[in-house]
C-alpha cells in the first residue's frame, strides 16, 4: 500500500473500530482519536460515513406528535432562562444551572404532590390571593373576571375590578395548561390541554364543580344557553366534535391522517343555528348541525383558522393564525378579509373593534369599519376576551405579565400585575 506501512494500517484499523463503537454508543471522541483523525483522511472518511449512517437511521424513524402541552412548557422554560440570564452575572451565564431547565417538571411534581391533598387544593383562599402567576386564560365570569394560570398548580383567581377576591389551585396529574375558557351562566368551562380535560368552575363561591375528560385532547370550546340550561361544545385535537357530558355522541370533522399541530387551538361557535368549527390543519370552516353534529357544509378558507367570534347581524369573524382576519357569512364563506401582522391565535370582538393576540409579543386592534390596523407590543399576550362594557381583558403570561383591561382605543384602564405565588 503506497504511503502506508503495516503499522499504520493496523493503527487505522484499531481507530476505525473505536470510531464504530463510539458512534454506535453515542460517546464522544477521545483526544487521541481526534489527533489521529486530524492527520488521517481515511479514518476521517470512515467517521463521516458512520455519522451519516447514524443520521439516515434517525431520519427514518417515523415522527410522533408530542403531547400538546410540552411546547408551551418548553417556551415557558426558555422564557424563564432568558429572564434569569438577563439578571445574573456574566460568568454565570455560560451554563445555566441544570435545574432551571427542569422547572416545568418540578412544577409537575409539585402538582402531583398537591393532588395528594386534593381537598385542600379546592378550598378557596382569600388571604393569599394577591398574585396572578403566569395568566393564560381570562373569562368574563358572573360579576368579574376568572383568570386561569399556567403556573404548575393550575391556579384560578377571581377578580372583582382589579382586586383578587378568591383563589384556588385546580391541580391535576400534569401541571395544568389552560388554553381557553367560556362562560355559561354562573359557570366557567376551562380547557386544560395538559390533562386532556375541561374543568367546570363555579364562581359563587369559586370552586371546581366537575372535571370532564376529553381523552383526545381539547382544542376548542364554545357555550350556548337554551331552555335546558345550555350546552358546551368542544373540538378535540384529533378533529372530533362533541358535547360535554355526552361522551357517546361525537363526530369527526378531520379527513386527513396528518399530525395535528401541537399547541394550536381550534375555534367552535354556535351562530345562526349552525355550529361553526375551524379545522386549522386543512384551512377549513366546517358547519355542523348542533343537534345531530352532522357536517352540513365545509368551506376552505385557507391558512390556519384557529378562533371564531360572532358579530351583530349574523356574520362570524374567523382568525387565521397565518395572518388574516376573515368575515364569514352564514354559509361560512369569506366576504371580507383583513391582513394581519404576525401569527395571532386569539380573538375578541366588541362592536366594530376586534383585538387579536399573538403570543410572540403583539396585540393588534382592527377597526372593522375603516379597516385600520393598530399594533401594540405586549410581552406575551395569551388570551383576550371582550367585556360587556365595551372594553377588553388581556391575559399576559410570563414573569412580567398579569391581566390588563383596555378600552376600544387600546388605552389601558387598569392592570393587575402578575407574580409568583
Amino acid at each position, binding site marked *: 500500500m503506497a504511503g502506508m506501512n503495516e503499522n499504520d494500517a493496523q493503527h487505522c484499523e484499531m481507530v476505525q473500530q473505536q470510531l464504530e463503537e463510539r458512534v454506535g454508543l453515542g460517546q464522544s471522541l477521545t483526544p487521541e482519536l481526534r489527533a489521529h483523525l486530524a492527520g488521517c483522511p481515511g*479514518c476521517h472518511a470512515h467517521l463521516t460515513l458512520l*455519522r451519516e449512517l447514524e*443520521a439516515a437511521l434517525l431520519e427514518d*424513524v*417515523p415522527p410522533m406528535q408530542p403531547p400538546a402541552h410540552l411546547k408551551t412548557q*418548553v417556551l415557558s422554560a426558555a422564557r424563564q432562562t*432568558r429572564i434569569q440570564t438577563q439578571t445574573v452575572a456574566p460568568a454565570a451565564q455560560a451554563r445555566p444551572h441544570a435545574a432551571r431547565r427542569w422547572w416545568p417538571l418540578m412544577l409537575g411534581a409539585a402538582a402531583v404532590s398537591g393532588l395528594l391533598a386534593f381537598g385542600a387544593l379546592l378550598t378557596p383562599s382569600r388571604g393569599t390571593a394577591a398574585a396572578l402567576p403566569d395568566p393564560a386564560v381570562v373569562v368574563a365570569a358572573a360579576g368579574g373576571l376568572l383568570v386561569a394560570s399556567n403556573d404548575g398548580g393550575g391556579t384560578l383567581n377571581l377578580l372583582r375590578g382589579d382586586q383578587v377576591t378568591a383563589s384556588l389551585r385546580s391541580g391535576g396529574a400534569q401541571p395544568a395548561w389552560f388554553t381557553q375558557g367560556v362562560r355559561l351562566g354562573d359557570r366557567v368551562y376551562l380547557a386544560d390541554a395538559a390533562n386532556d380535560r375541561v374543568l367546570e368552575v363555579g364562581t359563587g363561591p369559586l370552586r371546581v364543580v366537575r372535571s370532564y375528560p376529553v381523552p383526545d385532547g381539547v382544542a376548542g370550546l364554545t357555550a350556548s344557553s337554551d331552555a335546558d340550561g345550555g350546552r358546551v361544545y368542544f373540538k378535540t385535537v384529533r378533529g372530533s366534535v362533541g358535547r360535554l357530558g355526552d361522551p357517546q355522541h361525537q363526530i369527526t370533522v378531520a379527513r386527513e391522517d396528518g399530525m395535528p399541530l401541537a399547541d394550536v387551538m381550534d375555534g367552535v361557535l354556535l351562530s345562526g343555528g349552525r355550529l361553526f368549527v375551524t379545522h386549522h390543519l386543512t384551512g377549513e370552516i366546517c358547519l355542523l348541525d348542533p343537534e345531530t353534529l352532522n357536517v352540513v357544509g365545509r368551506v376552505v378558507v385557507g391558512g390556519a383558522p384557529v378562533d371564531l367570534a360572532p358579530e351583530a347581524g349574523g356574520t362570524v369573524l374567523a382568525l387565521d393564525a397565518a395572518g388574516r382576519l376573515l368575515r364569514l357569512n352564514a354559509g361560512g364563506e369569506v366576504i371580507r378579509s383583513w391582513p394581519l401582522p404576525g401569527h395571532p391565535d386569539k380573538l375578541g370582538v366588541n362592536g366594530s373593534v376586534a383585538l387579536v393576540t399573538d403570543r410572540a409579543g403583539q396585540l393588534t386592534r382592527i377597526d372593522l369599519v375603516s379597516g385600520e390596523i393598530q399594533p401594540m407590543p405586549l410581552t406575551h399576550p395569551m388570551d383576550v376576551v371582550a367585556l360587556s362594557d365595551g372594553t377588553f381583558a388581556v391575559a399576559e403570561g410570563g414573569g412580567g405579565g398579569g391581566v390588563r383591561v383596555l378600552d376600544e382605543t387600546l388605552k389601558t384602564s387598569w392592570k393587575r400585575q402578575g407574580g409568583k405565588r
Partner: protein
Amino acid sequence: MLDMTWLAVPDSRFSLRSPPPAAAEQDESRLQAAQAGPPKTQEADAALALRLRQRDEAALSEVYDQHSGAVFGVLNRLLGDAAAQEVLQDVFLRLWERPESYDPARAGLKTFLLVMARSRALDRLRATKATLPLFTEEGAELPLPDSGPGPVARSEDAQRREQIRAALSQLSAAHRETVERAYLAGESREEISGAMNVPVGTVKSRLNYALKHLRVVLESAGLEKAGPGKEVETWLE
C-alpha cells in the same frame, strides 16, 4: 424493520410562525431535498440559527413546530413516552441555551436535533458519565464531520444521504436490524448478540458487511469522499 417510504411520511409540519407552503411548493422542495440538496432548508436553518442567537423566542417556537415530531419519534422509540417527554424538553432547551453550538454551514437543523436527541437518550439509558453527549463543560462537540462542507458540499451530502438510504434498503432484515441496534439504539456488540441470539462474531461481521456495502454504493454513485482510496479499501476488506 423500517420501511423506506420516508418521502411519504409527514416528517415536517408547517409552522404557524411561517405560513404553510402550497402543495406544489412542498412537492418541489421535497424533490430538491431528494435530488440535489436542500438549499432553501439551509437558508431557513441559517435564518433560524441567527434568530436563536438573538434570543428570539418565536424562532424557538418555529424550530419546535418543525422538528418536535421527528425528535419525539426518536426519543419515544429509544426511551418510551414518559422519559421521551422529559428529554424532548431538554433537547430544545439546550438548543435555546447554546444556540452557538449549531452551525448551519455544517449540518441541517433537523439532523443536529436528532443526533442530540439520540445522544441525550443514550446518556439517560446508560446513566453514566462515560457516555458524553454533544456537550462537555469545555464546549460543544459537533455531531457531524469536522470539516465545514459549505453549500456545495451540503448538496452533495444530501445525495449521499439518499444513497445511504438506498443502500440500507438493500440490506437483509437481519443486517438492517443489526445496524439499527448498533447505530440507532446504541446497543453494544454483546447486547446485540444477546438480543438477536447470534454470536458476537456474527454481529461484527454483519456490521462490517453493512458498512462495506454503504461504501460500495457511495463509490458506485461517485459520492465517496476523499479518504480511503482503492488500496485502503482493499485493506479494509
